[in-house]
């Protein structure tokens, strides 16, 4: 079906693992092109969570009984799976949060208020998701830490000269930047970013919410200091996110939230903190979500990033070719290195109308600012329509999208 995907990649078989994909929507086959907002879940994840609740569940960490011990093992196996997935050198470097937004807020509180000093700066880019903007703004407004924004080129790539110039005075303590834009699909040049940042004394945190869905992330190879992502986009459950950080950095950081499990001992006068990563994990953790995420990671690893990336690259090529041929359609973002995200506008129709017309045909795309308002402003747009691909997306679905967009345009051109 797809000449560029490796022969072992059988998208029809994969689709059978995702029961939701066989639904019909408004009487039409379901064409789900909104995986970038949140991905669907394979049976392996659904079964892992159900199975835990039906046969093996109790609160973790402090229980001395069999159910608690087994559940602790199952939950902590998620940490091991995450560490392996990201090639972390130490499982204690994996902090489990509630979402990547939770990871950024942890960083803004704990690294931002605990390690950075007033007068230092945080450097983000013009194409960040709100979750990598707002926590830093709050930090800026509260602590007098400067917020710098690296511009992007018209092609939607990071402007590396400007990026370096913003580092040059040595005040930037942290570069917090997307590894892949959720609007433009742009994959940022991680190695160069790390190299430059380190040269000027800044640590680097990547927003990998999109990137880790589409390609292998090896934090040791990247050389970065922190890496954050979210479970629900990687075919896992909601309610769970990840922050990886170098152990020596995590150890310098004060805790973020207080409560059970993150302490070593508590008295009213003074409490002491548990070791990393538990210091950052207050309260009953996302136990079932950890179990579900482990199953998602195992599933992704079994398919393999090489196969997934090749399949998605061929989908993007096909989508760019088909969409660019539609008169009046503009693809937003033309980066060289890009992942399975294609944003576009139509001249005759507002993107909300486009999304609704597509939806009427069973095609789910997203329309709006995609939680990236400053980027929209940079692009001179209010909104775009956006199609995003998962491992289960087919070439035929992209054809249905393109054919339908032609008709949408016709409909609005009369």
């Amino acid at each position, binding site marked *: 079906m797809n000449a560029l995907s490796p022969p072992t990649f059988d998208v029809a078989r994969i689709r059978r693992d995702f029961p939701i994909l066989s639904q019909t929507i408004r009487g039409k086959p379901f064409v789900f092109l909104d995986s970038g907002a949140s991905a669907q879940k394979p049976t392996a994840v659904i079964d892992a969570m159900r199975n835990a609740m039906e046969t093996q569940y109790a609160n973790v960490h402090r229980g001395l009984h069999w159910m608690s011990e087994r559940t602790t093992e199952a939950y902590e196996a998620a940490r091991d799976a995450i560490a392996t997935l990201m090639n972390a050198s130490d499982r204690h470097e994996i902090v489990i949060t509630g979402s990547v937004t939770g990871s950024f807020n942890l960083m803004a509180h704990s690294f931002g208020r605990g390690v950075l000093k007033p007068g230092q700066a945080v450097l983000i880019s013009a194409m960040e998701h709100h979750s990598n903007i707002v926590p830093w703004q709050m930090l800026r407004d509260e602590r007098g830490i400067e917020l710098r924004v690296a511009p992007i080129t018209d092609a939607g790539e990071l402007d590396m000269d400007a990026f370096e110039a913003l580092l040059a005075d040595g005040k930037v303590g942290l570069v917090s930047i997307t590894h892949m834009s959720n609007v433009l699909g742009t994959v940022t040049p991680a190695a160069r970013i790390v190299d430059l940042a380190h040269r000027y004394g800044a640590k680097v945190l990547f927003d990998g919410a999109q990137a880790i869905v589409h390609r292998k992330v090896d934090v040791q190879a990247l050389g970065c200091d922190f890496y954050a992502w979210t479970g629900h986009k990687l075919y896992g459950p909601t309610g769970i996110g990840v922050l990886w950080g170098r152990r020596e950095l995590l150890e310098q950081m004060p805790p973020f939230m207080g409560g059970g499990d993150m302490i070593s001992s508590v008295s009213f006068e003074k409490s002491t903190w548990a070791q990393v990563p538990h210091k950052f994990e207050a309260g009953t953790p996302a136990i079932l979500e950890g179990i579900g995420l482990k199953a998602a990671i195992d599933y992704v690893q079994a398919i393999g990033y090489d196969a997934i990336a090749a399949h998605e690259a061929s989908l993007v090529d096909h989508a760019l070719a088909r969409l660019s041929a539609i008169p009046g359609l503009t693809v937003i973002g033309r980066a060289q290195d890009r992942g399975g995200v294609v944003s576009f506008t139509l001249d005759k*129709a*507002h993107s*909300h109308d486009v999304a*609704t*017309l597509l939806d009427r045909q069973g095609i789910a795309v997203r329309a709006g600012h995609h939680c990236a308002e400053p980027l*929209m402003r940079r692009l001179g747009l*209010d*909104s775009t329509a956006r199609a995003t691909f998962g491992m289960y997306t087919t070439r035929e679905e992209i054809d249905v999208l393109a054919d339908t967009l032609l008709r949408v345009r016709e409909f609005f051109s009369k």
Partner: protein
Amino acid sequence: MSGATFDDMRDLYQEVILDHGRNPRHAKRLDDFDSTAKGDNPMCGDRVQVWLKFTPAGAIAATGFEARGCAISVASADLMAETVQGRDPADTRALFAAFRDMARTGTCPACDAALTEPMERLAPLSGVHEYPSRVKCATLPWHALIAALDGTKETSSE
């Protein structure tokens, strides 16, 4: 994919909506106005500003608007401007309540005889109730209108 599939869309995008969305009659700032207000739907980026001119008796003499948004919100603003012409504030509020019901549910339980005529003009928008996230596109101009009546400068439909 046959041409017929797009007839499904007519439930929402009726000819009158496409027409008012493309060629709104009232899409202009009033130079001479008594009140104005902005409406903002931050979730989708739609923005509208409404200007009102009243008669000496306090009824709506003229309505103008500027909208940045989808066909639904522009058409809704234009149909609104047409329909509220000559109505006093109390009538206008009653009409908004009825319109909002219709946009949400597709029907208008509270519609009495007095509302029959104006609601018939607004009826092309009733299809929006099948698309809950689009209901706010249709009601946003009305929120701005009511804010202008109230003398509030800004409103937001979140």
